[in-house]
């Protein structure tokens, strides 16, 4: 139906705006807490885009893991380390600025190259049914090695956390 089409178009642009302005807020705001909240908004926008792409499972996982876990961990750091109105120090100057622009340009050009190089499959020719079964099968059978390698990184992070936590809080 036509009306569904309009609604989905509107939602698509709403999610784009959410992601974009969330990202802007995350990098540009002076209060560090705004950055975290901007990041959360950005993640929510990305979750919406996954939903638009007919992958509700991924979109829920995005909310559960990125908003519900990663942002909360960041929040803990902020709550422990900053007072509410403290302005974050500005590090973006001199050598840092040059490096930031360079790395940003590099990532941007690589992404554009990937986008222009890759062949986009028309909607009629789906490469999988993208259901949960399909996802689980492809993660645990077809791309098992990559999946296990990612979990190795997580293991390293856990070991690192244990080593950091081992000393306790110290005397001060």
């Amino acid at each position: 139906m036509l009306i569904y089409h309009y609604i989905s178009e509107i939602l698509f642009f709403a999610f784009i705006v959410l992601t974009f302005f969330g990202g802007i807020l995350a990098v540009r705001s002076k209060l560090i807490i705004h950055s975290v909240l901007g990041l959360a908004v950005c993640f929510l926008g990305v979750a919406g885009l996954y939903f638009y792409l007919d992958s509700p499972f991924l979109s829920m996982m995005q909310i559960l893991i990125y908003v519900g876990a990663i942002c909360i961990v960041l929040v803990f750091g902020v709550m422990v380390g900053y007072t509410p109105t403290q302005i974050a120090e500005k590090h973006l100057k001199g050598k840092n600025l040059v490096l930031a622009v360079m790395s940003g340009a590099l990532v941007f050009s690589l992404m554009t190259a990937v986008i222009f190089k890759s062949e986009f499959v028309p909607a009629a020719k789906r490469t999988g049914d993208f259901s949960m079964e399909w996802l689980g099968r492809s993660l645990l059978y077809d791309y098992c090695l990559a999946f296990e390698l990612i979990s190795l990184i997580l293991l390293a992070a856990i070991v690192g956390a244990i080593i950091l936590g081992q000393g306790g809080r110290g005397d001060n």
Partner: protein
Amino acid sequence: MDFIANLPPHFFRIPIALTLVISLVFINALIMVYLERKIAGHMQFRLGPMEVGWHGLLQTAIDAVKLMSKQLIVPDKAHTRLFRIAPLLAFTPAVLPFAVMPFAPNLQAVDINIGVIFIIAMASLNVMAIFVAGWASNNKYALLGAMRSVSQNIAYEIPVLLSLLSAVFVVGSFSLGDIVGYQGKIWLFIVQPLAFLIYFVSSVAETNRAPFDLPEAESELTAGFHTEYSGMAFALFFLGEYTEMFVVSSIATAVFLGGWHGFPLPFFEYSSVVWFLLKTYFLMFLMIWFRWTFPRVRFDQLLNFSWKYLIPFSLVNLLITAVVVKL
């Protein structure tokens, strides 16, 4: 009329479902506040509210009117915009799980195939709202209360997820409709008693209720993260809390206690809804009972209980379930 007839059915279905859900949320909060005070009273050999209406029945309605007429005070040094938005952020994710709640065979707004994950994701959004409220108040009690609340919530989210997962393993589907349908033969409470126990204990903690109500320690933290809130803003946090109580109890009902299954009742045509609500309110009564009988725990005990007992036990339970299902 042609135009209306051409509109897709969801245009009517969604507003009707929304109206029902919002009225359920408000009525549930009214009933629960009344029951809480009444049961507390009788457990302590007093009568509870008696003045307004028959046995104080109208007490909470009058309280709600009072709260609505109060001024919304924003503290001078608070972050105004975030302070205002936080109650809405806390309330909205508490209401959204109703979209997938199977009240009866045909009374479910949408039956998405990831219902359980949807509910858990919404619960994790709630944590963000508590943090925003505590931080934007610019009050050390609010901030400390929010920190407690957030650390408690993320500690108890894991056993909730793991215990629900073991139920999902048995059924083989994330859809709440399928899970309830499976329990026509046998309730999952019998197959997965440990998972049910872990789920219920951790969901009591997730809703920040006694004996785990440490974010609201009057003697040390005043009212926790909503210390600075007044009027309807405060009421929205309360509504969110009671709605969350309803949501976790009805998930426990749907996943472990057979949902709407039950023998047909003699005088009701829609006995499945009655069964669902009866089971849900029984679990909520249990929560109130806990509150007035158990002494509250210390904060380190609370976190240790989750990380050292509930999570390992639920992991072992999940492993055993996976092995048994595979056999």
